[in-house]
């Protein structure tokens, strides 16, 4: 079996562009709006989702033939919940401040539609390795949007990136002010709309039927 066949590469790269879970499928918006007020929690959240999507995809894919069809959602939830708990505990142990900032949104990864969507649509019908690639691809695609939105919001809302001041003090002295609306989820929605707008205009062409 060729690990990096064209098909597998597409499984990985499609979510990043033409089948992006946020920009095209418009899933996982809630957490994308909530955790992007700064760059650091956005990155951590993106990584957490990537790891959980990848491994829950692998686990479900491994046991896909033994899961009774009628209780598959429950089985999927148990797997995801177990992984989310592990990630949440690790976060609390190594990066407590970020875990406080993310608050309930780490726990809410359980209900993230991207995860359930990938498990239902991909892992249940594919082998572990493509499922893993699919999980990583979708997670990174989610993380990518979070990082774009988070970077804009932190730069214009706080004048910093990852906590480092980017906009020099001389700007503030000249009358520049941080934009308070960037700290609000409302602005995240507008920025997300702009990202989707640019994507649709330049990268993504809808099927003309």
């Amino acid at each position: 079996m060729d690990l990096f066949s064209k098909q597998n590469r597409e499984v990985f790269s499609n979510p990043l562009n033409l089948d992006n879970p946020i920009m095209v499928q418009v899933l996982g918006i809630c957490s994308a709006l909530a955790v992007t007020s700064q760059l650091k929690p956005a990155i951590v959240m993106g990584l957490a989702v990537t790891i959980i999507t990848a491994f829950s995809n692998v686990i479900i894919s491994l046991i896909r033939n033994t899961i009774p069809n009628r209780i598959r959602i429950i089985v999927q939830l148990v797997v995801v919940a177990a992984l989310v708990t592990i990630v949440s505990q690790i976060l609390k142990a190594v990066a407590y401040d970020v875990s406080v900032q993310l608050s309930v949104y780490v726990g809410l990864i359980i209900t993230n539609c991207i995860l359930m969507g990938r498990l239902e649509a991909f892992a249940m019908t594919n082998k572990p390795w493509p499922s893993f690639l699919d999980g990583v691809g979708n997670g990174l695609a989610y993380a990518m949007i979070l990082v774009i939105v988070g970077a804009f919001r932190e730069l214009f809302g706080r004048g910093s990136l990852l906590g480092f001041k980017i906009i020099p003090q001389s700007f503030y002295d000249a009358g520049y002010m941080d934009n308070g609306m960037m700290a609000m989820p409302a602005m995240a929605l507008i920025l997300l709309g702009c990202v989707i707008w640019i994507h649709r205009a330049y990268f993504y062409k809808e099927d003309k039927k």
Partner: protein
Amino acid sequence: MSLRNYLDKIRPNFEKGGKLHAFKSVYDGFDTFLYVPNETSKSGTSIHDAIDSKRIMSMVVIALLPAMLFGMYNIGYQNALAAGKLADATFWGMFLYGFFALLPNILVSYIVGLGIEFAWAQWKGEEIQEGYLVSGILIPLIIPVTTPLWILVLAIAFAVIFTKEIFGGTGMNIFNVALAARAFLFFSYPAKMTGDAIWVAKDSLFGLGYTLPDGFTMATPLGEIAQGVQVNNSLNDMIIGLIPGSVGETSVIAITIGAAILLWTNIASWRTMLSVFLGGTVMGLLFQSTGATSIQWYEHLVLGGFCFGAVFMATDPVTSARTETGKWFFGFFIGAMAIIIRVLNPGYPEGMMLAILFGNMFAPLIDYCVVQSNISKRAKRAK
């Protein structure tokens, strides 16, 4: 008619094949702004109202002039009052000072807003729409005179692009464009939109006016109420408009003149205006009887942006309810909501902006309910 001749002379350049064809939308925009469009339908019968949207916009701008002129005078008056030099100040001195203080805001507003509209029309290959004529003068009138120009630019760009152009341009917007600009400023730069340090122009311009110390503060009456301070402006001052506030909103008399123009020319709906005041009165009386507010109910109606919003903002034909019954509900909702926000939310001394934006959001729902109830009523009658 030399202007007409000139426009006709340069027209071939903008026709198909002319060297400036790419800028046809700009030419059309100016031509129809200056003269009535010379286009008639080629087939069938069509009836046009003699007044088109450009003329309606021009009438609204004329109706806004009294409020704007008084706003200019009040800028100078507040500046002189704050400097303690009111006795020395002349009428023309104060007016000219206000004129020079407000002029940059108006220019920036029109240049940026129209620039975006023209560029957008050019980009999309559409005709230039005239919707910004009114918004462009409304925006400087509903913000404090000291608003820095660069944040005004941001707010106007935001409002024109995100509340108008992406919904399809003039006539398609859900929210009032001018209020969207103000809301952007209000939430983005609260230090420049609320509080007590921003309502009086502080710098002397061209030798006019007086330079005030940096730390000078003067709260609006509504701001004082929110802080629990006794208001010491007389009712006369509130009605004439000699109180600090956003540029155009202070004078009830100037706004009444504008309202008379709008009602006389049938441009604004008297139902909306009246019901806004009804809503405000009912809520004001309610809060006064329960002791929730420290001022009289009628003072609520003359303070802040209540009158200005009721006359010029709530009646915006695009964003208000379209059905005649709906206008009653729409107006009442806005008036009541404005007073509720003022009295019950200590964080927002003024509630008119949020109330109207809220009303804009509900206008389609109100229309839907009115239309549906009419349909079911008539369906019952048919049985």
